[in-house]
């Protein structure tokens, strides 16, 4: 289903790197990566996952998961925790805590607090724990500043360093607009996946390009990186990857 794309990204392992960042260019949809990673984490026994829904509702991930062959509802409340910011805002309207900041905390601080409390509740009973944040750019839309988002990501990175087997995966849309934040957040982690559109136009057999950058040696002087480029096509029930040159124009 989604094994090939996860293999290409190096995320098809039980132990994931501490911080992974997905940069999504404008006019490209990289939500399929979140669905693929979520499915892979849920399949591992006793691996906890926290899904922070900022771009799509939980229902979207449930439906996308069903297409990829897993049912999130089975795991919800057990190994899967959900912070559905969008649903809360829809239900509470303008009185939602994400808009009103009742405790004097800003949006990112509130979100961080919720994530921390979820991690503290569930981390101890799990072999590993993954925090998936589906779109950081929504935080900008809701009024968070660049500094606040940067601080939020640094807190997340610190959280992943505090605990073994804790992985934080973030995604940022419109990375070409929020270039500074995107680069700063990517520097916090070991793996950066860029979802890029095809510069040459729309092609029926390929949706876009994945550029995977991975820091090879961690440490004080880590500077060696590998870069891998693959093309992807999201189908109805799977995601296919191709190496550049594999697909050509059929005459």
């Amino acid at each position, binding site marked *: 289903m989604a094994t090939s794309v996860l293999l290409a990204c190096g995320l098809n392992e039980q132990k994931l790197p501490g911080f992974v960042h997905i940069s999504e260019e*404008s*006019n490209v*949809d990289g*939500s*399929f990566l979140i*669905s693929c990673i979520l499915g892979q984490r849920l399949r591992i026994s006793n691996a906890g996952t926290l899904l922070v829904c900022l771009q*799509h*509702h939980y*229902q*979207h991930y449930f*439906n*996308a998961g069903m*297409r*990829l062959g897993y049912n999130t509802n089975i795991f919800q409340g057990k190994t899967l925790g959900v912070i559905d910011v*969008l*649903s809360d*805002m*829809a*239900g509470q*309207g*303008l*009185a939602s805590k994400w*808009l*009103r900041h009742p405790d004097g905390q800003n949006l990112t601080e509130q979100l961080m607090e919720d994530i921390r409390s979820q991690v503290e509740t569930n981390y101890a009973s799990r072999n590993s724990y993954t925090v998936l944040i589906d779109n950081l*750019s*929504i935080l*900008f*839309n*809701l*009024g968070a500043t660049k500094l606040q988002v940067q601080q939020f990501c640094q807190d997340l990175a610190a959280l992943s360093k505090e605990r073994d087997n804790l992985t934080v995966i973030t995604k940022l*849309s*419109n990375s*070409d*607009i929020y270039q500074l934040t995107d680069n700063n957040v990517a520097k916090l982690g070991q793996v950066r996946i860029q979802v890029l559109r*095809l*510069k*040459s*136009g*729309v*092609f*029926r*057999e*390929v949706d876009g*390009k994945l550029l995977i950058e991975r820091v090879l040696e961690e440490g004080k002087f880590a500077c060696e990186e590998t870069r891998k480029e693959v*093309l992807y096509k*999201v*189908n*109805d*029930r799977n*995601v296919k990857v*191709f190496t*550049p*040159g*594999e*697909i*050509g*124009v059929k005459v």
Partner: protein
Amino acid sequence: MTSFRKRTVQKPIRGTRTSPHTAQVITSSGNPYLDVVIGGGLPMGSICLIEEDRFMTHAKVLAKYFLAEGVLSKQEIFLGSLDDIPAEMLRRLPKPLTDLESEVEQREEEQAAAGAGAENGLRIAWRYNDLPLVNSEHATAKIGHHFNLMEQMDSIMLYYANTTMWDDSHKEADIVIAFGDELSKSSSPTSCSLEQQPVENAPPIPGAGEEIIQEVKTKEDQFLLKTSEEQLTYIHQMLRDMEDDPPIPGAGEEIIQEVKTKEEINANNNNNSSTTVASSTKTASQESQVFHNARYGGLLNDIQQLLRDESFVAGTKKNLCRVCLTSLGSPLWYDEHFGEDLIKFLTLLMASVRNCNSVCLITMPMHLIAKYDASLVPKIRQLVDYAIELESFAGSEKETHPAFKEYSGLLHLHKMSALNTLAVHMPDTTDLAFKLRRKKFVIEKFHLPPELQESPKPDSCSTSILSNSNATASLDF
């Protein structure tokens, strides 16, 4: 005890069907050609952005189709605009065609196409005569209705439509009226402004309904003298209720009695109006905290109030709400924090629309927004599910260019995202053009006309359209 369970098939929402490709519940956009482009229709919970053409002619036509489809499918409609008068816009919705009329029209078109082919009579490439005609206009599966743009919808149809309008002109009245959760939705002042007009112009319903309408009209006149909008709303609310249960002779008296009872309740509620104002003030303060421009808060509040109705709760399959916002982000919305407020509003709108049985169509003057702040364009497109740009030829060089003489403009698909599914539908081609005919708005594949004369130099305009802007860049695959 057996494991047998009787299979109960849930009745689908009026005007919707399940897409065979994505298994999603979809509804028609009102225009069958647009439906084909987006994969059968708009999925439930989706937002479609129509990027307006410079003179706002064609985007408005699509908005009218969207609204007309909602009226015909008996769905709830929310129409908000600062630039247009919503009541006026609703009054000018296109007239629906009957099945017979649409069949006749389709047959006439086919005959015309066949006739044109026979007249041309291919002599050299005569073998092509045997091939079926290529129809660049896509046919569509039956989901929505067909409309005639030349004629206007009957006022009686509009009279029974469940509509809520917003144009920011009745703010004060809204505060006074909103004294109860149940009534606040129907008692929106703008929701009755549409219905006031058709009451006068509406033709009488044949049969027993006539008496009731007459009585209600008389009562309405009395109320109008009192200039009480709340009382009017009650009558219209009851008329809506009557839609489900067809009127029976003699039932009019009961209705009038009910009106009187509600009138009494209303009078009692007026005594408690101070608490209403307080709660509304609280809402207003919330709006001002979230948005710098209070109009966004007001509009969002009205939409959310409507969408919170139990008939639109996701999974209940009772009814669908169509939210239509025209010319959002036009200069009338400008202020110091325009970009910030607009993006926040769209984010919250996205959250609300996706959370219930609703679809949303927004038209925005993107060419103006791009001039205000170019970075807003991708941000806005990211917050919608479909972004469709209408590039009209009106007022441009292309208007008189022979390559475009058949079309009114080009249609650019900027974004189609996968909502509640993994893969997105891709149309056969993304080279699309539209033409506004006398009776309908047609979207078809863009074809350049055959070059019959030898031209000394290549046509720079036509070649630039088909070639990509980054033609010099190497292919990615």
